[in-house]
């Protein structure tokens, strides 16, 4: 059964009592909330996702709750809770659907240490993945959404999930979260109506979700190997520029942007090294014009693999254990 087969009332009832269990990529998420807008958000952004009605075991348990005390009614707020943790400060109630997204991202990043996780957007085309890794405000989600509209399959706009034994990228297939000016930029290019409503937010200049396509959700059990690793940076007025990056430097940057590289220790090192060994090219990329940027990425597939020294651990001299 998928979400769109459930009536809004049934969703609302389920969310309030017991919770709705949704599969996104490898995770079963049990979402609970007394808020009707969460039911609408699920029906809207998660329409194609499988619902598992009587799932006995869920990986993530997230509750999206109305503010405490007076903040339930006066300038109402919303917050989320993952088991006992409350990861974010309460936000205005109208941002409840965004709170659901942030909460799910937080839960994955903090629990799923059976993957190497990197703060990056991941998209797939032609059987190979593009990893866009950057700090916040670098235009990562904007690029991700623009490429999604061009038919790339979205794995995630926030978290690259890297499987530990074989460094394959695993889809999460969740909606993309757009902020501020990029919402209109993407909406202009959106002829399928994938971009959802904009929720006003003075801090971020508005928030909107881009629904994943039906095919993206259908393919969320199919992982893929890495093709390219790109570190994008949006700079107003800057011409589209790129330069190849040695794999060793790309390694350092990815490790830096990782949620759990250091927690995984040797395994983290080996997994990341194997990932970069499989990469056909690593680039630094600067842009200001979205269409030019998208064109560059479309042509990326035709570029011959860059020559760069392997970073595989097997080619490193054996290191003795520190005493």
């Amino acid at each position: 059964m998928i979400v769109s087969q459930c009536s809004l009332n049934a969703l609302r009832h389920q969310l309030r009592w017991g919770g709705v269990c949704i599969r996104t990529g490898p995770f079963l998420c049990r979402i609970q909330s007394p808020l009707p807008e969460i039911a609408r958000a699920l029906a809207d952004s998660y329409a194609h996702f499988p619902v598992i009605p009587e799932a006995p075991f869920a990986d993530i348990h997230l509750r999206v709750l109305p503010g405490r005390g007076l903040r339930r009614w006066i300038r109402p707020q919303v917050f989320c809770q993952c088991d006992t943790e409350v990861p974010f400060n309460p936000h205005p109630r109208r941002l409840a659907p965004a709170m659901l997204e942030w909460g799910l991202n937080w839960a994955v990043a903090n629990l799923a240490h059976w993957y190497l996780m990197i703060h990056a957007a991941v998209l797939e085309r032609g059987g190979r993945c593009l990893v866009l890794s950057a700090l916040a405000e670098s235009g990562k989600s904007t690029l991700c959404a623009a490429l999604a509209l061009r038919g790339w399959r979205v794995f995630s706009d926030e978290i690259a999930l890297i499987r530990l034994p074989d460094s394959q990228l695993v889809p999460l297939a969740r909606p993309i979260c757009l902020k501020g000016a990029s919402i209109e930029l993407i909406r202009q290019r959106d002829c399928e109506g994938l971009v959802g409503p904009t929720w006003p937010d003075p801090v971020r200049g508005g928030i909107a979700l881009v629904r994943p396509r039906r095919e993206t959700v259908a393919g969320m059990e199919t992982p893929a190997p890495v093709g390219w690793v790109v570190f994008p940076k949006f700079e107003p007025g800057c011409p589209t520029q790129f330069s190849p990056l040695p794999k060793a430097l790309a390694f350092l940057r990815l490790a830096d942007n990782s949620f759990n590289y250091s927690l995984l220790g040797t395994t983290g090192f080996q997994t990341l090294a194997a990932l970069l060994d499989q990469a056909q090219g690593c680039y630094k990329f600067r842009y200001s014009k979205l269409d030019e940027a998208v064109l560059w990425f479309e042509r990326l597939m035709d570029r011959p693999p860059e020559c760069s020294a392997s970073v595989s651990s097997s080619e490193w001299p054996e290191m003795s254990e520190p005493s």
Partner: protein
Amino acid sequence: MSYVPSANRPLLQVLREPEQMTHLALADWDLLVRQARCARLLGRLGYQAEQLGVERIPESVRPHLEAASRTAEKHRTMMHWEIHQVRQVLGPVTQKIVLLKGAAYVAAGLPTAQGRLFSDMDILVPKADLAQVEQALLAAGWQPMKLHPYDQRYYRAWMHELPPLEHRTRQTTLDVHHTILPETGRLHPDPQKLLADARPLPEPPLYVLSPTDMLLHSAAHLFQDGEIGGALRDLVDMADLVRCFGAEPEFWPNLLHRARQLELGRPLWYALAHLEWCFPGLTPKEVLQQAQSERPPWPIRPLMHLLIRWAIQPELPEHSTWLGQTARWLLYVRSHWLRMPPRLLLPHLVHKALRRWHHEEEEK
């Protein structure tokens, strides 16, 4: 009196009998994984699963246990490194660095360290060396976490430790103790006795407390100093210590005598009584018998028993009851009551409340 809050049963059960983990239904695991995570015991279950063979655990649960084991492993590595760092810095300025709690379990290679998470590092040093120790740590990159002059004075005048230190780059917390309970409190275990009996580790000047003292410290920490939030984890620690040291011939005969020497008879009774409740059969009957003389009088005994049982419940929001919350709050109040006499406690609480109020005003 044998009533255990129902939400707590699966976690206690698998801690008592790891074998039970192989018989649980997936729906039990759904609750258990979260309870264990919030009691900081999921790594422990991960370790138990490794011992049993992970293939006997349902497939969808395994990754969670594996992740918890990895996290525990990382904590252990960090603790080793932290111990190494502290030894480098303090070796030249003090004769004895006694590692306490988590640090001791790791350094002494005790089974208690398996799958355990560590939040900070605790050490005990002779009070005479305290000034040099603090100077050396400050010079080597540790810095005070609480800068408010009131907090500084609170720790220095009344507590059993320096104001907590945090390392500038590693962000690890270090608590430097000169005794194991607040100086303003009701009980005064003599730190000289603890130091005199400490056991050297292979790397001088690192020491750990003697087996009896290690158990007594854990008991004092939980039942006198009142860190009730991690009560179940502390009981698991104590159960491990007892399993590990109970085999030594002098451990049980000495325990009660030592407890009286250190004024820790009452916390020991609490520890043994609640160990017996959580992990029946670990403590020899005659030791339990002899410890009866240390037990609290009638109305306090059943009341504390009830409060601790309720407080030990994992705090998952959907199972949070007002009974559990009230019990935790009362135990928290009790710990403050034991920590300072009323003439110090009242001004302290008033000061704290005023400061919180000021802080909120400023934020607005």
